């Protein structure tokens, strides 16, 4: 079978200045930047962009941020974890505002991506801000026709430190109202007193309860801090999932 490479992977990687239309707080430690990008070639759920900041004296800093918005949306949304002593993320969350420009290039990456055409079921496992590319996948899935969605059920298991650290909490709870989407949170530090969900690090039992049996041959996407990603990927293979269907992306703190 031959097919043209999607524009998202074959275009040249040049820097563009996007227009900021909104910067909104997601949680105490994260914000989302809504962008209008001229000549955006389109992207695939899971891809990221590189952002470059240049100061008037020529000083530069560059970071990568995952795309939170699905390919179907007109705006491009990046969600940024604010690192207190960082130099890029505090600028993006605290200084940048609507009508500013922001230099970026992308979309970038082709390994940690998912299209509805690849099918499922989907098993998404997130730690912290690792939920960002996975949310793009769920949102992309939500744009498909109901009959297509029914053939691609999705489960998300999301580990956060506290209830208030859950990024897109309302949005994810909305998505979970569909019968073919399950969203489960586990809270590893302080949980609300009435919290009845998981309150421990992701373990094998949790993955067996929330995940699919290996016989369902799910496509698994795991994104978060390195220790979580390595632990979950190892557990999924131990449970019997095909390593070739387990894709990982490691997130580290980048200021």
């Amino acid at each position: 079978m031959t097919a043209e490479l999607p524009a998202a992977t074959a275009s040249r990687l040049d820097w563009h200045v996007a227009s900021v239309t909104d910067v909104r707080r997601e949680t105490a430690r994260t914000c989302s930047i809504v962008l209008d990008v001229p000549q955006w070639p389109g992207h695939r759920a899971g891809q990221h962009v590189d952002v470059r900041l240049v100061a008037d004296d020529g000083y530069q800093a560059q970071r990568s941020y995952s795309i939170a918005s699905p390919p179907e949306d007109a705006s491009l949304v990046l969600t940024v974890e604010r690192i207190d002593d960082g130099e890029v993320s505090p600028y993006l969350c605290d200084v940048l505002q609507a009508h500013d420009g922001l230099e970026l290039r992308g979309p970038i990456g082709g390994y940690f991506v998912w299209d509805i055409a690849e099918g499922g079921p989907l098993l998404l496992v997130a730690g912290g801000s690792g939920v960002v590319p996975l949310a793009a996948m769920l949102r992309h899935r939500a744009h498909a026709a109901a009959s297509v969605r029914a053939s691609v059920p999705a489960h998300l298991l999301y580990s956060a430190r506290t209830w208030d650290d859950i990024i897109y909490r309302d949005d994810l709870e909305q998505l979970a109202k569909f019968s073919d989407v399950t969203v489960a949170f586990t809270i590893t530090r302080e949980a609300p007193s009435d919290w009845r969900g998981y309150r421990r690090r992701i373990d094998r039992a949790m993955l067996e309860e929330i995940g699919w049996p290996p016989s369902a041959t799910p496509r698994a996407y795991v994104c978060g801090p390195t220790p979580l990603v390595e632990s979950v990927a190892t557990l999924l293979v131990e449970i019997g999932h095909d390593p070739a269907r387990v894709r990982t992306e490691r997130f580290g703190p980048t200021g």
Partner: protein
Amino acid sequence: MRVEEMRLDGNAAAGALREIFAHDMTTALVTCAGCARASPMGVLMNYGGPMGVILRCPHCDTVMLRIVSTPGGRYMDASGSSVMLIPERPT
């Protein structure tokens, strides 16, 4: 925080790789010159931080690919990768 917890993977090197290659390279299947096992570029361990891209084999830690961008040009050493398969159609 230990360095092992901060390192990223080959996905984070996609931009640096696209400065050199015409295609996205994170789906490329790369064979380690040290242990002969093949991995998608996206899962290689990424060290080096702001000094450059250092991609190591997830199985044996062999340095498979090094890239440094300098004002004079981009340096790349792939002597730790015996073969790269760039798939015709990324999936």
